[in-house]
Each structure stands twice: as structure tokens, then as C-alpha cells.
């Protein structure tokens, strides 16, 4: 199995993360999603998948500020979170194809991918469905006296789910080490968030006494910095935080959502792809800061491509689960 690299570790608050690895991870997600889309188009991947291309800055910026033993919960649009938290692409592809070698033995698929070893408590196909889980993990952390933190990734659509307010209230009351990261990609399915969100989004957290920050989700540095601050506070008992990250999904709501004209314009899509791409933006300052050059980027892209192609190959060749697996794992 090829090994996609683990979450970049923050060695110290001063030194900051390894930005090359940050870049690599974003690129990995981008190329992963392209392959997922391709597998779907070629009818090798069953079901649907929700791609996160365009949103890599959030997943990577957040997870870069986390430790391996920190928890995340993810969404239906969760490949990026999973990779950013350190999962291997090969076992992820295997899961997407329903193979036994997948993270969930093929039982979960794209919408339920979880990676116990890296603290990914799972994607969730219920909008807002993992908010309770993440907040409960934070309660568990506190009860165990650990200095882990939990991150709950949610979409802007999850602001519609009442459970968010229930758990934010308890997280605030009990000063739980949890960070709610909301990926505002402007749409929930085929409806603009502006039609479904009244008032100022971050006030939905501050109303509960939770510090909230608006973050440019396309700037991985900004995401990292905001997360690192929230994580530091949470680790030291300072309680929850809420990050409202503006971002954009390039693909449709799911892989099959191709004709999008009725809910958003080509121009808008183009703007984000061309002007606000988190990977291109990172590349500019990485080059400017001398952290990478054209040659090293080329090399890196080749490496990632190679790894992902190998991962796809592995997954396609991998066997399906045995029929007897259908009845296992119902009870623990």
C-alpha cells in the first residue's frame, strides 16, 4: 500500500507547520477527488459522492493544527477531512468502491468513512448528524482529563439543524474542548445559503458565549492560524470555539450534479476557481517566500500523482467483502 503522509505536525507554536506538507496535502485532496469523480463517471464507484475540491484550505488548515490523537467528525463531503487527518488514500479508495480493504470494510462508503486510528470518528450522511458525537467526544476528553481536542466539521446547511444549538450550549456551559468548523460554501444542495440563513452566522455561536471567527477558508494560513488559536485555548481548558470559513465547492453537490445553471452561475464558479483557489493561492506565497520552486512543485505533483494512481489501482484490484460480512458488526 502506498502511504499518504500523516497530518503535518506542529512542532512548536513558533516554528509553525511544515508548509510544504500542507501544500502537498491540499494537492493530494484535489487529485483524490478528481480520481473519485473519474471512478464515478466510469461506473466503477457505486452510489454517489460529494466532492470537496475547492475546499482543501479548510480541511488542511484545520487538521494541520491538530494532533494525531485529536478527534474530528466529518460530513457527507468528507474525503478532504479524512485525508487531512492522515488517512491513506488506498484504503479510502477501497472504501469508496465498497471493498473489504476499505476503512470500514466497504460497509460505510464515501458518506461514512471513518479512521479510528487517526481520530476521525466518521463522516455522516445526516446533515449535522455528527455534532452530538463530536461534542460528546469533547465531554469524554474532559472527563478523562486529557488535553485532546475535538473538531466538528459541518457545512453551512447544518446551521439549520437545531441540534447544533443544543450542543453549543452544553459545550459552552461545560467549557468543552471542541471547535465547530463551519464550511460555508454558499450552498446547501441546490439552495443558496442566503435563502436559508437569517441574521449573521457567527452570532449563532456568540449568542451561546462561544468565541467565533470569520475565516477566509481559501487561505490555508488563515485557517491554520485561527484553528491553532482555538485549539490552544481549548487544550488549556478555555472551552469551545466556532470558525466560519468561507469556501466554495467546484463540483456539484454530488458527482451527479452536473447541470448547475439553475442555482448558480458559471461566472461564479469561474471566479472561485480562478481567483480564489486555495492551492494556487498557497503556491503564490510559498514561491514568494522561497519555500518551494517550480521544480520542487513539479516533483511533488508527480509524487502525489503516482501515489494516488497506485492507490486507485490498489482499490480497483482489491476484493469485495465476503458475503458473510453482511451479518457481522451489527453488535459489538
Amino acid at each position: 500500500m502506498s502511504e499518504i503522509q500523516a497530518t503535518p505536525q506542529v512542532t512548536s507554536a513558533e516554528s509553525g507547520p511544515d508548509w510544504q506538507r500542507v501544500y502537498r496535502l491540499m494537492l493530494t485532496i484535489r487529485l483524490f477527488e478528481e480520481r473519485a469523480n473519474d471512478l464515478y463517471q466510469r461506473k466503477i464507484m457505486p452510489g454517489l459522492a460529494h466532492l470537496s475540491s475547492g475546499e482543501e484550505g479548510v480541511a488542511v488548515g484545520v487538521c494541520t493544527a491538530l494532533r494525531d490523537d485529536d478527534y474530528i467528525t466529518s460530513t457527507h463531503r468528507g474525503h478532504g477531512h479524512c485525508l487531512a487527518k492522515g488517512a491513506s488514500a488506498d484504503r479510502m479508495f477501497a472504501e469508496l468502491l465498497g471493498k473489504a480493504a476499505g476503512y470500514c470494510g466497504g460497509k460505510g462508503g464515501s458518506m461514512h468513512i471513518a479512521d479510528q486510528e487517526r481520530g476521525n470518528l466518521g463522516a455522516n450522511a445526516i446533515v449535522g448528524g455528527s455534532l452530538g458525537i463530536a461534542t460528546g467526544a469533547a465531554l469524554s476528553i474532559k472527563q478523562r482529563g486529557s488535553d485532546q481536542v475535538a473538531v466538528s466539521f459541518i457545512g453551512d446547511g447544518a446551521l439549520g439543524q437545531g441540534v447544533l444549538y443544543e450542543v453549543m450550549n452544553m459545550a459552552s456551559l461545560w467549557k468543552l474542548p471542541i471547535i465547530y468548523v463551519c464550511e460555508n460554501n454558499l450552498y446547501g444542495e441546490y439552495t443558496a445559503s442566503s435563502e436559508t440563513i437569517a441574521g449573521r452566522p457567527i452570532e449563532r455561536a456568540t449568542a451561546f458565549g462561544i468565541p467565533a471567527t470569520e475565516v477566509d477558508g481559501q487561505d490555508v494560513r488563515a485557517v491554520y492560524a485561527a484553528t491553532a488559536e482555538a485549539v490552544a485555548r481549548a487544550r488549556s481548558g478555555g472551552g469551545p470555539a466556532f470558525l466560519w470559513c468561507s469556501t466554495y465547492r467546484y463540483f456539484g453537490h454530488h458527482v451527479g450534479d452536473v447541470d448547475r445553471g439553475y442555482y448558480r452561475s458559471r461566472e461564479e464558479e469561474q471566479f472561485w476557481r480562478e481567483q480564489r483557489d486555495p492551492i494556487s493561492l498557497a503556491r503564490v506565497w510559498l514561491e514568494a517566500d522561497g519555500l518551494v520552486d517550480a521544480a520542487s512543485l513539479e516533483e511533488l505533483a508527480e509524487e502525489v500523482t503516482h501515489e494516488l494512481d497506485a492507490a486507485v489501482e490498489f482499490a480497483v484490484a482489491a476484493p469485495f467483502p465476503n458475503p458473510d460480512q453482511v451479518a457481522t458488526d451489527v453488535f459489538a
Partner: protein
Amino acid sequence: MSSPDPTPEGESRELTMAQAIREAIAEEMRRDSSVFVMGEDVAEAGTPFKVLSGLVEEFGPERVIDTPISEPGFTGMGVGAAMTGRRPVVDIMFGDFLGLVMDQVANQAAKVHYMSGGKLSVPLTIRTTMGASRRSAAQHSQSLHAWVSHIPGLKVVLPSTPYDAKGLMKTAIRDNSPVVFFEDKMNYQQRGQVPVAEYTIPLGVADIKRPGKDVTVIATSSMVLVAMEAAEVLAQEGIECEVVDPRTTVPLDREALINSVGRTTRAVVVDEGHRSYGVGAELAAVVSEGAFYFLDAPVRRLGAMDVPIPFSPVLEDLTVPTVQGLVDTVRELCGRK
């Protein structure tokens, strides 16, 4: 078919079930200005299954309302609107999301009429889906009609054909009680004749989808298709299945089920909910009790396996009742194996 011939005097045309449902709702919206639709992505998107395409264009956004992703909230609002002069059709995109709204459905909608001593009523229709086999995994594949069928005060509809879907939907919308209407995702593209002229179908009347004398197959929703195919196979072996479709679990046409089994002396129940504590258990119990003295063999039940629906196609396909599984069961029941 014991149901009124769809083309007795008038014209008919072939529609998909999705089209038939849309037509029913559109007709009722034209007929009664208090009917409106509410749910996620019901307007321009016309739902992910495109069942409601075109409605917002005809009726406008005041009557085809896109909501936030707030199932408990807008279902509750449907209850309140229904109590105050409207006839809401609330869309719960996937039946799995019933978990979010059972309080609104079971504690509010179902009970308001009774608790108020009949003074208030809730003419609410909740449309939702059921059915697996789409590689949608455990949280998008459930058939949870057992939950609502268990709660007094709710009517529950499970159409199996475009014809039934249209006629039952119109009745559901006109009903003064809350009705939960389950649409099997696998049925949406199924085609069938639907009359041009208006018609309705009463709730609580089972339909014999295929007459037969050897064994009764009681099938619901998309399982009717499975039963019809199985009956075809079995007919070639000389086993004549009577396929009975209750069409509504509440009210339940107990008599029709019992009478059929009384004639055939054998019964299999096929329902796509999980086998245990599911709708199939009630149907089997009703027949076992009501036709006890006629039964030549125990009533058999087929349902989804008692496991969360797995993603992997090779596993998912094992979980739901199949034509082959039903054929085998009937053969065994008739001592042909």
C-alpha cells in the same frame, strides 16, 4: 386487478410514478388554494428525485417553499399551518430523516385531533421515501414505515404503481388527518397507465394485483414488483400466486388479506422494512390470527435483513428481498423443494 380499470371509458397514458405523484399534487394545488408544498430543495430543484419539477414555476415560491435543512422545524410548522386552515404537503427528502421528526409527527401531528377532543385537526401530508438498493448506505436506505404505522392518529400510504400513487396522493391531501406517504426510490422511474380523467383511491382498500389460487403474497410498495416477477416465474411451474397489495398500512384492509389467505391457505408477506418488529410482523400476525383455521402452513415473512444497510453492492444486495428469494420461499411453502 380488482382496482377500477384505469381506462374504463377515458383515455390514459403512461407515466412514471414520479410524474404521477407530481400530477396528483399539481391537480390538488389547482383545486384547492390552501394546498402548498414545503421542504428542502422542492422549488427550483424539484427535489433530488425531480418529483416536484415544474411546480414552483406554476404555483410560485409562496406555495412551493424551499426551507432550510430543519426537518423538525418545518414539519412542526406544517402541523401548525394545517391546524389553521392550510393543507401542507411536507417533504422529508429521505425516510431515514424521520428520526429527526418523530416528535413532531408522533407527539404532535398524530395526537392533536384526539387530545383536543376533535376540536382541532391536522390535514397534513408528509411525503417521504423508503427503499434500499441504491448504494446509499445505512443512513439513506431505510424503510421506516413501521414507526409511523404504530402511532394511532397517522394514516400511512405505500403505493406500488403510478396509478395507485396518483389516486392515493390525491386522497391523502384531501384527508383531514395527517398522512405519511412513502415513495420507494426504486419505483420513481417505474411506468404505468394513468387515466387522463381525474380519480381518487380511498385509503384502506387493498388491491389484488394478480389473482391466484395457490398462495397469497402480501407485498407492499416496491416489493409488489418483486412479487409480480416472482409470480410470473412461479406460474411457469404451476404455482398460482395471488399478489395482494394493502396499499395503506393504516387503515389496514384486514379483511382483504384474510379473505385471500382463506382462499389460498398459504401466505408470504414481503415488505422492505427490517424483518423484525416491522410492518411484515403485523401483516403476518393479522393473517395468522384471522385465517388460522384455513392455513395449511405457517405464514412466512420476507423483509430486509436485521442489519444496517451496508454500502458495498455485494453486501447490500444480500439485505433486501429478491425475486429469487421469494420464489424459493413460495416453492418451499408449497412443498416444491
